[in-house]
């Protein structure tokens, strides 16, 4: 039993791509998002509550999850606008903005522990949303929130 510490700067990795292969950490054409400030995995189920005559407390069951990956990152020119590098990964070529604009389905893999075999991951499929790049003279570097709205289940796995 141990907590997962990310202070080494190489533990938390998010890779995305237009296919499962391109969206896998360590994949040749995987787009690994740099400069992430914070990231949150939302796997919140809905809840339906109901009352019965033979119980003093409400009963409940959970309903399907709303799954999301939300993060804030600094805007990297190539990652946000695409590098048109002719890779097999359309998300790399189009960038986050292009993938959001085109409503491209993206496959993603988020590692909690790094890129070594056996490190724990969560993966899934979804769509990029929630881009809102902002900058000011007080915070003079472009940064943006990014949301991956998941289409279906999140899957726990390993590298």
């Amino acid at each position, binding site marked *: 039993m141990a907590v997962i510490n*990310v202070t*080494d*700067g*190489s*533990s*938390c*990795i998010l890779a995305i791509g237009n296919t499962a292969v391109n969206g896998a950490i360590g994949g040749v054409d995987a787009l690994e998002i*740099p*400069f*992430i*400030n*914070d*990231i949150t995995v939302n796997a919140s189920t809905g809840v339906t509550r109901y009352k019965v005559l033979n119980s003093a407390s409400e009963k409940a069951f959970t309903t399907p999850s709303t799954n999301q990956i939300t993060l804030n*990152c*600094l805007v990297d020119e190539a990652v946000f606008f695409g590098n048109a590098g002719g890779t097999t990964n359309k998300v790399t070529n189009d960038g986050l903005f292009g993938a959001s604009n085109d409503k491209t389905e993206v496959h993603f893999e988020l590692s909690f522990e790094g890129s070594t075999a056996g490190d724990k991951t969560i993966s899934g499929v979804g769509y990029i949303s929630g881009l809102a790049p902002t900058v000011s*003279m*007080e*915070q*003079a*570097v472009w*940064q943006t929130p990014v949301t991956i709205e998941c289409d279906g289940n999140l899957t726990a796995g390993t590298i």
Partner: protein
Amino acid sequence: MSKRTDLISKITTNLSAYTAFTVSSEMPFISGGIPLYEKNMKTIYVGEQNIGVGELYDTLDGQVINETTTNINAYLSVDAKEQLTNIDTVIAQILLARNGIANTVTSTSEYDTDIVNDVITYTFEFNFTTV
């Protein structure tokens, strides 16, 4: 160019209409026990820049975006007995020199005064932040 060089250049430009004043590129060192700006009144001396680097953004992939703060003092001494009629505008022009420094996200300037015998010394403090 360094911020100090840029600042000297900008002060020189701003004071070009005030021919009684000059801007020196020398450091305001002490000569014979007297600072140069007191020895050469109506000459502006710009001190060495002091630089501090801090962390603006830290990221989960270990990359750091730094913020650099540069602090520079400048000095001007004039006769305290007979104040120059245009000293207010001269001071204003020196303070405004902060606006001409390129690639800064914030810049501030202020001054304070000190009178010793019949000499009033204006000490200007400029602060520039770059990313």
